[in-house]
């Protein structure tokens, strides 16, 4: 057994063993199940597309929160309580800690989301709906990727900071910036660019790309490409008429980048510091 899997295993045991962990996981699963229960009551012959448009608003809020909350204490919480001292008294490297934490919590998050979404899909399918395996898997994959991106950001913050208070403040800041503020910035961005004579009435493609490189915007683009292609909700970013870099495929890669970059950055800083 590898060293990081030992850490991951212990982490999962701890998460599932604690009451707050169980409650949080249960709540997330319930939201997805409940959405699956509600959609057929308003729509006849519901599909995953209906499920997506019904749940989109709450998922955009809930999944980042779940990911950040799972991640932001992962390392710094252990440091503050001296658990890191105990763990690093055994033959584990700092990389084992970061990877183990990411894998352990990533599995927990993926499992919770999968159970919720698969359960929700069953409720959509039965008795009158129709769920295609392809859209279901696309939705599941995109949502897990989305959750993992925020988990990685949370873990990075917990590896970069040395006190729980710092980590809490930064996590709150990231949540506010990415989830609440960022998607609303389109107007400001357009005005700014018009002032600089870089735009005229609509955002140029490159600006849409930059603005859309934030995880929740990327997630929406992925869903709009593969799950709800008939619902043009994010404007110029959509459709095969747009440039290639605004399509769903590159968005998936960028979302994956949001998993790797924070984790590596967090690790590099964590490796340098004293405990």
């Amino acid at each position, binding site marked *: *057994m590898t*060293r990081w899997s*030992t850490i991951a*295993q*212990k982490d999962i*045991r*701890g*998460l*599932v*063993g*604690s009451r707050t*962990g169980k409650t949080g996981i249960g709540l997330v699963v319930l939201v997805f199940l409940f959405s699956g229960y509600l959609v057929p009551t308003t729509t006849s012959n519901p599909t995953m597309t209906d499920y997506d448009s019904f749940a989109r608003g709450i998922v955009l809020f809930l999944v980042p929160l779940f990911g950040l909350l799972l991640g932001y204490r992962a390392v710094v919480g*252990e440091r503050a*309580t*001296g*658990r890191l*001292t*105990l763990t*690093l*008294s*055994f*033959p*584990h*490297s700092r990389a084992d800690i970061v990877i183990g934490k990411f894998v352990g919590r990533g599995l927990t998050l993926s499992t919770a989301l999968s159970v919720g979404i698969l359960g929700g899909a069953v409720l959509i399918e039965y008795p009158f709906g129709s769920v295609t395996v392809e859209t279901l898997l696309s939705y599941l994959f995109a949502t897990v990727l989305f959750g993992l991106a925020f988990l990685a950001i949370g873990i990075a913050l917990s590896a970069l900071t040395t006190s729980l208070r710092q980590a809490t403040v930064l996590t709150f800041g990231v949540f506010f910036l990415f989830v609440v503020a960022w998607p609303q910035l389109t107007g400001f961005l357009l005005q700014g660019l018009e002032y600089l004579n870089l735009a005229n009435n609509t955002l140029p493609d490159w600006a849409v790309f930059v603005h859309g490189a934030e995880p929740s915007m990327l997630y929406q683009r992925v869903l709009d490409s593969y799950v709800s292609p008939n619902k043009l909700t994010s404007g110029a970013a959509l459709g095969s008429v747009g440039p290639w870099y605004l399509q769903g495929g590159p968005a998936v890669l960028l979302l994956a980048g949001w998993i790797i970059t924070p984790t590596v950055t967090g690790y590099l800083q964590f490796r340098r510091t*004293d*405990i």
Partner: protein
Amino acid sequence: MPPAIEIHDATKRYGSFTAVDRVNLEVEQGEVFGFLGHNGAGKSTMINMLLDHVRPTTGNLKVFGADCQKNSVRARKRMGVLPDGYGVYSGLTGRQHIQFAMESKDVDGDPLAFLDRVGITEAADRAAEEYSKGMTQRMVFAMALVGEPDLLVLDEPTSGLDPAGARSMRETIREENERGATVFFSSHILEQIEAVADRVGIMHQGKLTAVDTIGGLREMASSETKLLISTNNLCDSVVNAVETVDGVENVVHTDDGQLAVTCTKQVKIDVLLTLDKHNVTVLDLTTEEPSLEDLFVEYTWRSE
């Protein structure tokens, strides 16, 4: 056969504060080495550098030839550690803690055997967070014993233990040493160290001020003695005469007519002969021999 621990010129600075100051130390395999010093003397910083929790500002440390910073995991593979300021994992029982230690060190077997050794078998399936301080300390000690480590590093191992618990831990340390393990442990309590250590290092204000065997320290401590002599007819010329005796360090004529003489053990009789030569009547005589404790105090206060 490389030494169990090699510390070369290790220094750790935090801003302008020097926690560990140019420490050199070698601990041979099979030794029990006691690391003595007040709280804040730099003992834990030294141990944390061995574990790579703290990186030295300069110098290097090795455990069985493996560099503690560059090859930290390899160094820690051979260690069993009871660190200072640890916390236990929430949501995990005592048994699961031992399991974690066993998985970390690739050891198979029954976790209960380890809990048995420290006498907390009956608490195996309770959450470790609910343990008392002493039980927690025993559990982490049991985690340190997993995998028959070649080097046990114990930071203040008996803290939180009652006297019986401390004694049984000392017995386990001795057993581990007989098995062949090197033991490196710190304490601010002299008796703890005296009871098990072959060699002692005294740490004070970040500096390693003395390294010797217990026997050597005791010899050093007992080589000096203090004579308290009661007389009735003392004059300054006698005091001067006593001062000139070879081996006498210090003579004080107290107000109540007593003579306090600090000298080496061998010249006690010369002091008395000198008094006799000057026709001084000795009414009473007591001797005070400084203990190891006094020596420790002397080593840790004199540089202030």
